[in-house]
């Protein structure tokens, strides 16, 4: 009889746990459905490739897409080499000592710094102190520091999942440490590094607070000409449309949100596909 009670209790508890999961996930699905259904009505080729017109109340969002693309590219140029080298250090060189522990704590803290504080940091260091001004350069550098922990963590995991024996064989053939890393370890870690990179790209593309004071232009009806130009960006544009400009058609806002979410979801899907493709191919 006691057992029966325990079974009943389990059924009830599991039901509530399932309910909690639904409470979290159903809004996610609803949000996506709303964005897609309302945003797709304005989504067409002209919307993607035209300049905004009439104080951004009509026309397209072309310069914001280009701006976001430049920012993402700039972010990768700075963050990728440092991130991968840092992961190589942690995975291949570092010993279990105090320095390593401090580096790990620094990475955890970088990952936890609020995005708006990155904005302040970028303003203080890149815009004002180094005199880059509000520019693609300053914005990219700020975003690069922000995504660094994502790239380091993913790359380190990828490197550490390469079996020891690969390194031992390479050493036994007389290769140096760097040759071993370059030819025996890195190629096998590439899919994991790529996945982490794509995830960090989608993070950089969606952030608003770090670019507020470092690069984002409220309205700039031409494309940026150099890395010292300001640029419009998709997430900031959505912010402007939804809170700063009165009487913007709601559909236009949904359309902008759809393009931003669409880009990010596609990037994430690509990451998932790469991960599962190489996981299936892996032979160790």
């Amino acid at each position, binding site marked *: 009889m006691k057992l029966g009670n325990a079974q009943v209790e389990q059924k009830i508890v599991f039901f509530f*746990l399932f309910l909690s999961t639904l409470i979290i996930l159903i809004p996610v699905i609803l949000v996506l459905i709303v964005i897609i259904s309302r945003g797709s009505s304005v989504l067409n080729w002209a919307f993607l490739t035209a300049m905004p017109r009439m104080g951004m109340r009509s026309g397209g969002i072309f310069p914001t897409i280009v701006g976001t693309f430049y920012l993402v590219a700039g972010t990768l140029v700075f963050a990728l080499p*440092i991130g991968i*080298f840092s992961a190589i*250090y942690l995975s291949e060189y570092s010993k*279990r000592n105090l320095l390593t522990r401090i580096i790990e*704590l620094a990475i955890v803290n970088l990952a936890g710094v*609020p995005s708006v504080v990155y904005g*302040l940091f970028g303003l203080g260091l890149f815009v004002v102190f180094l005199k880059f001004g509000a520019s693609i350069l300053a914005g990219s550098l700020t975003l690069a520091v922000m995504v660094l922990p994502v790239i380091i963590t993913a790359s380190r995991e990828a490197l550490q999942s390469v079996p020891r024996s690969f390194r031992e064989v390479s050493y036994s053939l007389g290769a140096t*440490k760097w040759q071993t890393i370059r030819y025996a370890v890195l190629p096998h870690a590439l899919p994991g590094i790529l996945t982490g990179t794509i995830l960090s790209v989608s993070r950089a593309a969606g952030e608003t607070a770090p670019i507020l004071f470092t690069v984002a232009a409220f309205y700039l009806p031409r494309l940026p000409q150099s890395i010292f130009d300001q640029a419009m960006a998709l*997430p900031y544009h959505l912010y402007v449309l939804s809170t700063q400009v009165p009487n913007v058609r709601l559909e236009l806002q949904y359309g902008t949100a759809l393009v931003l979410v669409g880009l990010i979801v596609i990037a994430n899907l690509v990451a998932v596909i790469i991960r599962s493709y190489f996981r299936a191919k892996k032979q160790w």
Partner: protein
Amino acid sequence: MSMRRYYEFVIEALIFASGIASIIFVLLIFIFLLKEGLMLFEHVGVFEFLFGKYWYPISEPPRLGILPLILGSLWVTFGATVISVPLGIACAIFIGEIAPGWLKEVLKAGVELLAAIPSIVLGFIGLVTLVPMVKKVFGLPTGLTAISGSIMLAFMAMPTIVSIMEDALNAVPRGYREGSIAMGATQWQTIRRIVLPSASSGIIAAVMLGIGRVVGETMAVMMITGNAAVIPMSFFAPVRTMTATIAAEMGETVQGSEHYFALFAIGIVLFAITFVINLLADFALHGKQIRT
């Protein structure tokens, strides 16, 4: 041969430099916040800044007390924590311990999807759906309130809580569960008495990092909490958080003004809070390693 050794030396120097880059960046962030933020205290006392009741940055002379902002962040964070911690823990238990294989993958993908949606998009959706809903349900003059912010932030903290806690559950050895089941315990008894206590430090870390996420969240909270810099008296009134103040006002300040320095000083407070939270969470997760 010596050419190659030179090349390797350069590469390894670069690797080491990148290795400590994270430390350098944390220090740089700290230094540049201090560099601008500490200038404020030539004009305003630390106590007056932290516990001043009035934030009137553009009055003459400006009054730069951030108590309303600290309390605004506190209220919103408290509300979000109350909502997200039980739901997040329940969701992680369901995904980690109960859901069958295929469902588990689907649910995990859903949580990852939530994590991937930018905060500006959630803020926008919150503004056009949640805010009117809160206004109607509670019969308020405006839906731009602390409770709207708390609900929104609860969702944004969820992926952090669920994924870190699920990792913690996964780290509990299978043998623990099997031993418990073999003794005749039900699956729920096993989860409650064996798995959750074993994973407790991971659960604490998950909750801490979720709170850290909430404290630092900026765009969504700025869009839906109404931004009134007054000491909050109720969940159903507009509030303004520290993060929202920086994001909303930095664009309008004059570089080198007291207001400008004050926003950096708020940045120092935020940085200190999240630094401590992350440190505590990390110690909860890796506490044993620190002694080596």
